[in-house]
């Protein structure tokens, strides 16, 4: 099954290899929100793949979290990854910690750690807000290879500017399936692409219909346009 390559994910092996060669740790930030956010879950599933590679190479992976439920999930996932890699002794729960729920308190801790420990690779995958640029710029200043990804449209430009690779929106959600390599999961990535084709088709049909209605004032076409725009695509209330 062909799935288009995602540059930001191909670099994970390189990042782990670089960290191993340099003898420096890696940093993974799963965003600052809780497990009820799908971006946090998507980030954590990518983390489990990174943790597996880190366990294979015996490279430390630091995961500071801003929510305690995220910490618990991350610990479970890293332990499972170490077991899957056949290196259970590499799992160190002290590297996955709860820091604070406060946004800038968390940033202060992570930035301080980055400056002191100088990680060779930083991964920022999850839900981010104003802290995205502070984290990514600090990573840049310590010379780390960086991969950033979020579905927050307002934060994407910051990751594009400050990170070496950025997973833009949907790529974050495709990442875990892409890395797993399992046909069933890859199928959902292809499903995403088919969904996009459908969206493109609907946009083209909508544009043509709207143009035809404005040129001809045909009532049938207007009714079809109304059904498409105000009933199928509307969130309710016909607005």
């Amino acid at each position: 099954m062909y799935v288009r390559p995602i540059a930001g994910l191909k670099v994970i092996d390189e990042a782990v290899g670089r960290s191993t060669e340099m003898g420096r740790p890696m940093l993974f930030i799963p965003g600052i929100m809780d497990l009820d956010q799908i971006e946090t879950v998507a980030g954590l599933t990518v983390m489990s793949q990174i943790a597996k590679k880190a366990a294979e190479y015996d490279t430390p992976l630091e995961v500071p979290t801003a929510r305690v439920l995220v910490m618990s999930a991350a610990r479970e996932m890293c332990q499972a990854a170490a077991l899957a890699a056949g290196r259970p002794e590499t799992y160190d729960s002290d590297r996955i910690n709860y820091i604070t729920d406060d946004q800038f308190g968390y940033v202060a801790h992570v930035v301080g750690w980055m400056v002191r420990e100088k990680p060779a690779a930083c991964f920022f995958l999850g839900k981010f807000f104003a802290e995205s640029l502070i984290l990514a710029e600090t990573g840049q200043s310590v010379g780390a290879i960086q991969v950033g990804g979020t579905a927050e449209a307002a934060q994407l430009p910051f990751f594009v500017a400050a990170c070496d690779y950025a997973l833009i929106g949907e790529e974050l959600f495709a990442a875990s399936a892409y890395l797993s390599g399992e046909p069933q999961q890859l199928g959902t990535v292809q499903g995403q692409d088919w969904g996009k084709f459908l969206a493109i088709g609907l946009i083209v049909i909508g544009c043509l219909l709207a143009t035809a209605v404005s040129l001809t004032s045909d009532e049938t076409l207007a009714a079809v346009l109304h059904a498409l725009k105000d009933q199928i695509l509307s969130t309710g209330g016909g607005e």
Partner: protein
Amino acid sequence: MRRTIPLLIASLTGFAMIAAFFVKPAQPLTQLVEKWFTILSAVAFLTAGTSLLLHHLKKIAAQHAGWGYSAVTLIAFLVTVGVGLLKVGVPISPQFPNHPWAGSYQEEGSAFWWLYVYVMLPITSTLFSLLAFYVASAAFRAFRAKNTEAMLLLATAFLILLGRQAGEASGDTWTLWGTVQTVLGVSSGTVKDVIMQAGQRAIMIGIALGVAATSLRILLGLDRSYLGAD
């Protein structure tokens, strides 16, 4: 079994939430599940406090690099919890004047309030203000005209910058400067409202599809990595 039961709970709850969105009588279920999550989060705070204490105590005991920061964190944590729980300096509540602890711990004048207003807020504001310098350094790197794409980005940024300034300044539209202002304002508006908006909407459609695909993977149990090992 260790993964099957949580997986079943996640799948059933997830599908019930989807059903509740479309079936009106089932909508109170959403609020119920939200309450469960709030209760779980509240219980998790105990784990959070324990984890924080253990992590920093270990660092201090082992005198790891930066253990001094851990000591400051622990002191700040214990003092804040202490003054909050003991309601230190809480003003007397007008409703219950005979009960000195009846006032809210967040009341103006309490030690907890003082810590928040005079310690927490200035520190948070300082960190947030650092963002200006990070934006400047990121913009410097992003706008270096090293290839065609970077030059286009630089030109667009320059146009938006000038357009914003032109929009702010009031000028006579019949003079040359007024015409330039109008052209800049219209051009930057077009870039923002047409080109940027189209790009953002494309990203939003992709995100919506990605959310749907990821949710399905999790609810159908195709992706179980979040559950840890068996």
